[in-house]
């Protein structure tokens, strides 16, 4: 009996450790949801659990990069990283819902200012983190 239980535990371990990874919110939430399955909506529960230790929000596509941001920056970083594609487009267009959200979450001036500096601020950013850092210089 004990042998059986041990065997089961050994078999189950990779599963458990895998589940833990997803709870740390290290990009995997996005991985889970980007794989189309008929019932993907139900697997989405793994992205972010309501309560501690994963108390905060998912870090989405940060992709486990070891980055340090001040805690009051966390939401803005998360916002820019997760919305990178849409944000880049709307910053080129000069307006839109994603831009409004950015202005609110980063306390930024106006979208026109960013559109006029698109070539230096938005275009060179290769990912969300770089875009955030460039935007911080404009907004700050």
């Amino acid at each position: 009996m004990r042998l059986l239980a041990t065997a089961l535990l050994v078999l189950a371990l990779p599963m458990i450790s895998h589940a833990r990874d997803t709870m740390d919110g290290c990009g995997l939430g996005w991985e889970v949801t980007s794989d189309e399955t008929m019932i993907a909506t139900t697997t989405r529960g793994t992205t972010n659990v309501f309560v501690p230790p994963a108390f905060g929000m998912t870090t989405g596509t940060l992709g486990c990069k070891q980055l340090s941001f001040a805690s009051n920056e966390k939401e803005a970083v998360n916002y820019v990283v997760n919305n990178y594609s849409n944000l880049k487009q709307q910053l080129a267009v000069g307006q839109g819902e994603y831009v409004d959200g950015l202005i609110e979450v980063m306390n930024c001036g106006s979208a026109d200012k960013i559109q006029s500096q698109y070539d230096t601020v938005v275009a060179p950013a290769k990912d969300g983190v770089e875009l955030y850092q460039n935007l911080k210089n404009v907004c700050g």
Partner: protein
Amino acid sequence: MNFLLVLLVILNIDPVRADAPDLAYSREWLRLMHYQPHGNGFKSELDGKGFYFAPDGRTNPRAEIEASLEAFKQDLKVSRLKLHPQCAFPERFRFLMEHTRADIKPVDCPVFKEFLSGFHGAKATTLVFSSAYPNNPASMFGHSFLKIESDRKNELLDSGINYAAFTPPDANIFAFMYLGVFGGYQGTWSRDPYFKKVNDYINAESRDLWEYQLTLNQQETLRLLAHIWELEVNSHFDYFFFDENCSYQILRAIEAIKPDWNLSEHRIYVIPGETIKRVSDVPGAVREVRFRPSLYHQLEMQFAHLSDEERKTYRDYMNGKTVAPERMSVRVMDTLLTGILHRKARKKRKWSAEDQARENQVLELRSKNPTSPMRIEPPAHLLTSRPDWGHDPYSAHFSGGWLERDEIGATSLFRLKLKSAYHDLLAPDHGFTPFSEIEFPWVEFHADKKGARLQELGLISSTSLFPLTHFDQRPSWRLRWAAETERGRECQNCLLPGFEAAYGLALGDHAYRLYAFALGKAEVHSQLQHGYRLRPGLELGWIWKPKEKYKMRLVGRRFWNSIANELRWEHSTPISRNQELRQTSYIHHDDHFGRPAWLEFRLEWISYFR
């Protein structure tokens, strides 16, 4: 700990005695505690431990009031987070303080407060419904989750709350279905920023979102959060795909805060789209309904506003050709950007550096032009798919007509069909994804002068007619699993269990579909020549919806290997949300006779119900 509480309860004089004697059995308390009637008494719906203080709290609402009040006085550490009982059960504590005369000193709850502050001044609650995946009618049942509105202006900064089965991400599909249906997973509440929900549904999966803002005020919204908190940190429900699923538990949580709203009653299963109807049916429960079109629909809307010349520019660019900058109007560029986002979502990791370089070209060109983008309002055919406008899921079909079968000659015919869900191709599309079909178990009886018989016993049938467009090309398909009584002469009056798969292409817009399917049908029966029959076939169909209240379908099918031809012509019109009239003409021809083996003409009345 339980022993201690029992002792305390026994020693303590009943703290509720001076209050209304029926508090323990009041609807407010029963709903807050998730009791359901069970035999002569009540039973908890929670499957995890930790939600009740009384040893018999799961079945004894009165004992639980007393035990809870007692626990709130003690300096205990309960819940997954080792919190004071008042902090682990903030809504229960508030409720009992309001409804009893207990005098208990409130404690400070920093962890719970931090949790609430993450919602940035939660002030309103919205129930969100996500429509089907494009090209997958099986997902028409949808999904629902909550949106908690913050005091900030931008909606993307609100929070989404989801209830779902907690599953390991590598669970194989069979284990997933089995455990899901039989409650093998625990339900988990999770929270995400709303922009993440929008990214998942609107951008990555191209599903529309319908947002039903409820009339819960700020206090009630905070109480809802407190209640979900006390469910999640202390206990859990087992998750059942069909009934105790995402939609059900969300409704139960809302009912705990709004005990006068009856939302969660159901027959066999809970369909998310149906729960939206439940909520809409409660007078005054919904303040406002908003629509967020999927990326696919955004693209469709933008594309519809382009001139022919602009469409050509769009196609050229998307096909990788070089396009002169002067052809790039603002409208073309903005449509291209949406088209690129859509393609990016579909390609996922196959999105190449070259693809990115082409997007960057458009972006840089667009950033030089400060013109505002064109505002496009969603067209009527998208707005009519709001789930509360749909017909109900169950249906009864009564039909009568005239039949000529080769061996019995002419006769009158009566049919009765009962179906448990959901939507077929001729049914009115209000409230559903147009031109898609998902039918769940059904049974159909026939009576003619030869007597009555079981004509059809169906398990599932699903059809997707996805139109080919410049911006999205996907196959159309059908899967059908049903037993049907043979109409031809090869196996007279046999009930043939069969499986049909069809694959093909469709053309169309919001008013029609033309489609061609290559199909295969496998049937088994001892009276068939080899005990089974495999037939390849071809199907051509035309569905036409010239106006909202009329649909027509013309379908021709030909099977080889025991040749049979079928022609079906149908008309349908809704007479109210839950009533529909249909007329069908049908000819079945096979190679035994030169004349039709089956000729039918009938009128049908359909009543949808729940």
